[in-house]
């Protein structure tokens, strides 16, 4: 029964106070933008960390001049070890080709190379939960004892780093999340508080005329929702622009940036998150409405 009037009041109020509302939407947008940006960065780092996990493995160097049968038996032996997902055999020749490929940019170091100085090797992929400093150490010790194996390159340091990185990432995510969520709540709360504050006198009067809480609250909830929604929309748009700017432009220079992922759901979800936060903030800001 009040809704038509509340809608009209909210729209009119928002038009009359263009400035405050623009600033509010802008503020909400900029904080949601930061949330989105940091979220996106964390998301992508997480993704990247995931691929590091998958890619990472041990490299087992074989003694020179092993027969095919001997090589095969080493591989079988390794497959039996706990934590090993797969093992890929790389011959001397493959190794050189691969290295040359990887180091294209500095390929001049291979100028005039006419003997192949590399060993044949086996690359292992390990299970995710197997990549801890101790487990990798034990595994590589075990593999080294297999006959035919010359050396195991275990890169404990990389394992340690990934481990540390993962832990500090979750810590940081938590801190950043808490800081940002309280930031967004603060902004929307104080935004609606301002709108409420500006109409304090009017609300006081309407209360004295006998208005119910719902009658008073509804326009504010609509305003909060609109501001939050628009804030979410703007921040999503801004993030998309930044995203395309980075993937299309900067990736020419830093090719790794081409792999940045922007989850499509964000485009739908974020304005709705803004709307919900707006309604919530408005609700808190209008408060108990004592009579």
């Amino acid at each position, binding site marked *: *029964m009040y809704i038509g009037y509340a809608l009209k009041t909210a729209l009119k109020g928002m038009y009359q106070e263009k400035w405050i509302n623009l600033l509010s939407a802008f503020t909400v947008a900029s904080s949601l933008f930061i949330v989105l940006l940091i979220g996106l960065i964390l998301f992508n780092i997480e993704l990247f960390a995931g691929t590091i996990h998958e890619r990472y493995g041990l490299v087992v160097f074989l003694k020179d001049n092993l027969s095919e049968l001997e090589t095969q038996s080493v591989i079988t032996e390794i497959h039996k070890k706990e934590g090993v997902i797969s093992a890929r055999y790389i011959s001397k020749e493959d190794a050189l080709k691969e290295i040359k490929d990887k180091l294209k940019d500095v390929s001049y170091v291979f100028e005039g190379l006419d003997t192949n100085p590399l060993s044949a090797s086996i690359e292992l992929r390990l299970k995710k939960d197997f990549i801890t400093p101790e487990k990798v150490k034990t595994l590589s010790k075990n593999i080294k004892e297999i006959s035919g194996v010359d050396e195991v390159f275990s890169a404990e340091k990389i394992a340690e780093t990934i481990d540390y990185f993962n832990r500090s990432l979750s810590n940081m995510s938590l801190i950043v999340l808490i800081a940002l969520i309280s930031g967004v709540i603060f902004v929307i709360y104080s935004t609606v508080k301002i709108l409420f504050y500006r109409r304090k006198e009017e609300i*006081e009067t309407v*209360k004295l005329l*006998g208005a119910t809480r719902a009658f008073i609250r509804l326009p504010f909830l609509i305003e909060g929702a609109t501001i939050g929604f628009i804030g979410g929309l703007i921040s999503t748009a801004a993030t998309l622009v930044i995203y395309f700017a980075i993937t299309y432009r900067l990736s020419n220079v830093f090719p790794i940036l081409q792999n940045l992922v922007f989850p499509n759901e964000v485009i739908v979800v974020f304005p709705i998150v803004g709307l919900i936060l707006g309604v919530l903030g408005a609700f808190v800001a209008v408060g108990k409405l004592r009579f």
Partner: protein
Amino acid sequence: MISFSNVSKFYDYHTVLRSVNFTVEKGEMVFITGPSGAGKSTLLKLIYRAEDADEGEIIVGKFNVTSIKSSDVPNLRRQIGVVFQDFRLLKGLSVYENVAIALRIRGLPEKEIKSRVFDVLKRVNIRHLADSNPKALSGGEQQRVVIARAVVAEPQVILADEPTGNLDPNTAIDIINLLKDINITGSTIIVATHNKELFRGTGKRVLRIDSNTIAGEEIG
């Protein structure tokens, strides 16, 4: 309809009302007078629960105002139309909307709101100002908007706080006649005023506030 028993009201540093006792019958019209700062406005505020009494009991119709639940306050207030001494017009809204809001709050359909608002604006002679902003009105015109808003919903009780302070004598008498007409249809009315002309010869009760309480009662 309205009864005060031993009602007192204090502000931090002084007493405004002490042991006020009076009763206003349903359908009665009563005047309250007294010097500036006597407590006339405060007394009216206690009736529509804009202020809490510190002592005593106030009954308004079926409501016990001094022990009313917070959620019942809007119901109480919808039984009462108030002409505020300081007008309390809503700045952002037109004259029409300022009057209509009293009906919107009560959930009336748009059509009835329209006819009722224009009716009452005609009665206080400001029909032609319906679309104006209250800020562009003269003092007396604003006061008539407030009166229109107070009576438009035909509430059981009308409280008019100095309703003619900005009106010329002729318009003032028109307003008092309007209130009398409404009174005849059954509304209980209390008018707080300095203006002796308003109650002289009306034959209504006049309560005089002095020294923080009702110091006397006469017939106007």
